Every structure is written in structure tokens, then in C-alpha cells.
């Protein structure tokens, strides 16, 4: 409940933040703090330096790029996302995370960079085919969603780097379905789908990183009838190796994956 001693810096620019993060192996970015401060309270991890990103206005805000794409600053809070119309699924999902207080502080950047397997945005952004802009001392690069999530708590944004923004390609037929611990609680299994020509379906909470249900995507093809979507989900569970824990057995998670994948696709179909 009480943190170890730590150093604190509050840079005024992204460049300064990157310099500070690169200068110390034990430096960590502090975004909304809704994960990191808890981790530090439990003393499960104790960074040497906290680099507070709160003054980096460049990292905030949702921008409609005019061509159907949407750009989201990494420091955009869940509350800010929920109030934005640019891509409705984002706000809808953001509005189901935890509670008001957490949503007022927690950020989409924090959600994806902490990459807890039960987080909402990793599978959603994989389904949306999002691209992630990472800036470091060596410059800036863009990474696809499939390449961004590397492992539990591990992403392509490495030490000394910052995720600055997430770009969502044009689209809008998106769906998200979850079974959680209580309403708006932590995910037991989550599923996201985006229909744009073909289907992109991602399952969360079943592995270290979101899993693309590629076989199901292929079987759906262009036939979005309820019948075909349900048939396409058969066998998805067998391809997964989810964990068993107090909330659900591996078998139940396999079952949920199939049920929620269908729900996510059908919800995407309904969204205009």
C-alpha cells in the first residue's frame, strides 16, 4: 500500500520524456497511474524514476483525419474517448472499463502498453487493424497491431520509447463482446470484431496477447448470415490454450471464446 522511494520527473515535451526514459533503465512512464501506481503500492514492481507524461498535450486528443481514419493520442483518457464520436466502438468499450474514477484518469496508451491479457483495448485494436506510432531516441516508427503486442506486459514500445498515438483505419462496423467479473469488471474472455471487406476477429484473455481467429475469419468470408457466423465459430475453442483460474476453467474460456466471437461479429454487423 506504500511505495518504495522513487524519483520523479515531469518533462515538458515528448523529446524530453524520451531522453529521460532512455537515460535510466529503471525509468518508467507514468500515464494515468491506474495500473502503475497500484503495482507500486503492492511493491510488485518499483521503478527508479517515474516520468510523468501529464504535461505532454501532444499526446492527448482524438483527431478525425478526414479520410475516415481516426488518430488517438496515447494519453487520451477513457472518459475522453467515451465522449468522442469519431469511432463509436472506442467510446463504448472505454465506457465499460472499471468505474468513473478509473476512466477519468486511465488512458488508452496505458491500457495497451501495460498489455495485461485481460485489458479491453488490445483485442479491440487488433480487430480494428490499428497502427501504433512509437517514438524513441532513434526516431519514430509505426507498427501494426499484430506486431505491437508481444507478451504479458510486453509490447513493441521498448525501454526508452513512448507510444505516442494509435491510428485506426477507416471503417465502422465494429463489435465487442465480453464476459466480465461483475458488470464492467475485469475480463474473463473478450472478443472484438471489425467488418471491412472481410472480418477481423480477435479474442482476449485466452493468451498472453490477443489471438486472431483466422480460421473463423476465413470461414465467414463474405457470408455474414447469422447461420454462417455461428457455424464458422465451431472449433475456435479447440485452437486455444487458455488458462484456468478461480474465475473460469480453460474449457469454459474455450466455450466463451466461441460464443463471444459470434456475438462480436453479429454486433459489428448491426452497427451502422
Amino acid at each position, binding site marked *: *500500500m*506504500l*511505495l*518504495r*522511494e522513487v524519483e520523479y520527473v515531469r518533462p515538458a515535451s515528448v523529446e524530453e520524456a524520451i531522453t529521460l526514459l532512455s537515460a535510466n533503465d529503471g525509468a518508467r512512464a507514468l500515464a494515468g497511474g491506474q495500473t502503475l501506481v497500484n503495482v507500486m503500492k503492492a511493491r510488485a514492481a518499483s521503478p527508479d524514476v517515474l516520468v510523468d507524461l501529464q504535461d505532454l498535450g501532444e499526446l492527448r486528443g482524438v483527431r478525425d483525419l478526414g479520410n475516415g481514419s481516426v488518430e488517438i493520442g496515447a494519453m487520451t483518457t477513457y472518459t475522453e474517448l467515451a465522449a468522442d464520436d469519431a469511432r463509436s466502438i472506442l467510446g463504448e468499450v472505454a465506457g465499460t472499463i472499471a468505474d468513473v474514477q478509473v476512466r477519468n484518469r486511465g488512458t488508452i496508451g496505458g491500457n495497451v502498453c501495460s498489455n495485461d491479457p485481460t485489458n479491453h483495448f488490445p483485442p479491440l485494436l487488433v480487430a480494428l487493424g490499428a497502427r501504433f506510432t512509437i517514438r524513441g531516441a532513434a526516431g519514430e516508427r509505426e507498427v501494426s497491431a499484430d506486431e505491437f503486442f508481444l507478451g504479458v506486459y510486453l509490447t513493441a514500445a521498448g525501454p526508452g520509447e513512448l507510444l505516442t498515438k494509435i491510428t485506426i483505419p477507416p471503417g465502422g462496423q465494429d463489435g465487442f463482446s465480453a464476459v466480465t467479473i461483475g458488470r464492467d469488471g475485469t475480463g474473463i474472455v473478450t472478443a472484438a470484431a471489425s467488418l471491412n471487406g472481410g472480418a477481423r476477429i480477435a479474442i482476449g484473455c485466452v493468451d498472453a496477447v490477443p489471438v486472431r481467429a483466422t480460421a473463423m475469419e476465413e470461414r465467414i468470408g463474405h457470408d455474414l448470415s447469422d447461420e454462417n457466423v455461428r457455424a464458422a465459430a465451431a472449433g475456435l475453442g479447440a485452437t486455444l490454450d487458455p488458462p484456468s483460474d478461480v474465475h473460469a476453467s480453460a474449457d469454459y474460456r474455450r466455450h466463451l471464446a466461441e460464443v463471444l466471437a459470434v456475438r462480436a461479429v453479429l454486433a459489428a454487423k448491426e452497427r451502422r
Partner: protein
Amino acid sequence: MTQTETQTEALVVEQTETKPGFAGTSIPRKEDKRLVQGQGVFFDDVKRHGMGYVHFVRSPYAHAKIKSIDVAAALELPGVYGSLTGDEVAILTDPFFELSVKPGADIKDYALAVGRVRHVGEPVAAVVASSREVARDAADLVVVDYEPLPAVTTAEQAQTNDVVLHDEGGSNVVWEGLFDWGDYEGAIAEADHVVKIERLHFDRFSSTPLECAGVLVEYNRGTAQWTLYGNHQMPGVGAIWMAPALRAGIDKLRFVSQDIGGAFGNKICLHPQYVACCLLARKLNRPVQWTEWRTDQHTANAHGNERTFLEIEVPVKKDGTMLGLKVRALDDCGAFPRYEPLGCIIWAQVTPGCYRWRNIRVDFTQVVTNKSPVSPNRGYSRMQHLWLTERVIDLVANELDLDPVEVRKKNYVRTEEMPYETPNGCVYDSGDYAKCLDIALGLIGYDGL
């Protein structure tokens, strides 16, 4: 409509006008004004000049010998005022008296673990420092050398006494009693069938008040009196436990509480930590404050009794009339009985529940295990028993292929039988259980399920 309902129309008291007095009216509370302004005074709100903050070093093992405790590194940390270990406690205090009869009565229960830890989270040492954070840091520097011992994790295992928790007692069985009402053998003889249920288990739980336990203790050297600003929910009882342990008169303990953030039983058995704080306040000659962390509250405050019901027998008639109940109850009170054996007995207030069975035999045994010690927790011990009776009804109905609603109504004590004396001597003076059940069933849309 059941037969019961039509017969009881005349006996239901209709509400007419509200009579003068408090019952039925909404009375504003005196304490609301300060509480809604954040002006409540909970113990952690109280501050004293020079006070030290306590952090307990707690056992990570369910069962282990303490081979040594080294506080030297902790004491060297700037801002640390001092420490306390079980060795000091064993010299400065006498064990808390146990409410149990032997062998429970022989258990040695101290403010800190002495020689051995018997549950995860048991306090082993305490450090005091100038801030909460430094106290927490200092606790990490206390080195405890443990030799893990086999852990007793179920009541059934405890009963075998393969691993005995308290050498003084010699047995893990701390209480036994046979409760025998009516004529159980007669019930068996009259029965068409005996429903047998091998095992039912009621899990331990915690009532988790939003405010954790804690205390700020000041020691007055001139009068040798301690003043405790705490949230002990029964300070009179706390004093009776603490004073003899501290080798002081009860008049040397002055409890001050204003507001308490819920308790539900979890703030009754705080005397071990409170005594540790009293010793520290005296040793360090400064006020000391302990605030329990939520994790510690969950692990090691006090759980509600865990109870296993074995070899359950219910002699019944074919039509679902229950003639009796026999059960062997095995209660797991955790590492120390403390407030027990009251829980071994108090369930007997509600022995038959709402039902008319007259022949009940309960063979009750309580054992210690390497889990959090229990204390009264919401519904204290009666909840476990009433859960048993309701589970039994459902299982009986299932075995006889009868509607569990009808089995209940058939076996309820009826309004026209009241006042009704139960086999264990309680008097039910009013009530229409069938009607209550119907109302509940209506509210949940039972017919539509």
C-alpha cells in the same frame, strides 16, 4: 393459494394508523451531520505529536517454526523508532486466556507469534517509524528465519492429529458436544425413507468492513495507563482480554472511540495487535498507531467459521414430511479459537430453522487449523446452520422427486401453532412462513422459471 394462506387471513394484523412512538417512523440520526461533512473521527484521523507508525511483519507460511528474528537492519533505517518481537512479548505478557474448555483452554495465544507461526499473516514482529512509508520499508528489512512445517488445511485433516498445532493442548480438537433433542431413533423407526447426504461444506468468509482495524495508543508513564483510540467494537471485552495479558488492571486501559467504519464482527478479536501496540507505546515512550492493510484484513483478521457437515441423515415420510435430522458438524476455527467456543453453541438458537422437525441430533466438533483465526462474523454461526437446513430441504425434495416449495410448506411451523416451542426451547411467537415464501416466489417470478 395454499391451505395455509386462507386460514391465516384472520390472523394477519393490518396496519392502521401509525401509533405514537418511534416504531414505523423515520428518525433523523444525530451522527449524520458530521458524517456527511467528513467530520467523523475514525481512529486513523487522530494524530499525536511524535507518534510512530506500526507495521507488522507477518508470516508468509501457514505453519512454521520461527528459528530467529533479526531486526538489526530495520533498526538502522533512518526514521525507525523501534521494534517488538515474540521473545519480548513472551517475557512481558501472559498468554491471553481462552474461552474454551481444555484442551482449547491450554492454548498459548500471544500478541505476536512465539516460537511458531500458525497461519499466513500471523504477526511475527512489529516495527515503528516516523512515517507509514518508512515503517513499511523497515518491515522489509526484518529477517525472519522460518522452518516450514506441514500445514493442516482441512478440518478432517486436523481431526487426525497427525500434525498438532498447539503442543500445550496436545490435540487439534478444541471442543466437542452432542446436541440431542427429541427421539432420533424413534424418527428413524417411523420413517418411510432416510435421505443420506454425505457431505456439505460452508466456506469461511469475511465481513470486510470498509474501514480496516487499527488503533492509536498512548502510554502515560506517570499513571501506567494506556489510552487507546481505536475501533474495537467491544472494548469492554477487549479490556478483559488485554489487561491480564499486560499484567495490569482493567482500569489501566482507557478506550476512546467516536466513529467506526463498520465492524460486523471483524473488530472483536483485535486484542493481539492492540497489546503489541500497548507494549510498543510503553517501550518507545511515544504514541504509536497501527492501521491494518486491506490485504492483511482479508488474510489474517478474522474469518467467519468454516463448517463441514458430514453423514447427514434425514428420516422422512414419502410425502416429504421430515421427521428428524442427524448431522456430524466439523467446525474449523482457524489457528486460535479466541472467541470460540461460542460459535459451537450459538447456532443452537436456530436449530430447527423454520421447520417443525422435533428430533434433531447434532454431533459438533471444533478443530484448529493453519488458517486465519475466526471471530463472530455477521450471522455468527447461525448462518452456517441455516444454510445447512435449507440445503437439506432441497436435497430431500430432489431425492423424493417433490417440489422444494411444497416440501418447505409441508414442514414449516404453522402460524396457528404459534406460540410454538422448538425442541431446543426457543419460542416462535409469530410468523407466516408459507406466506413469506409465496411473496418471495412472486417477486422472483418463480412460476415463470
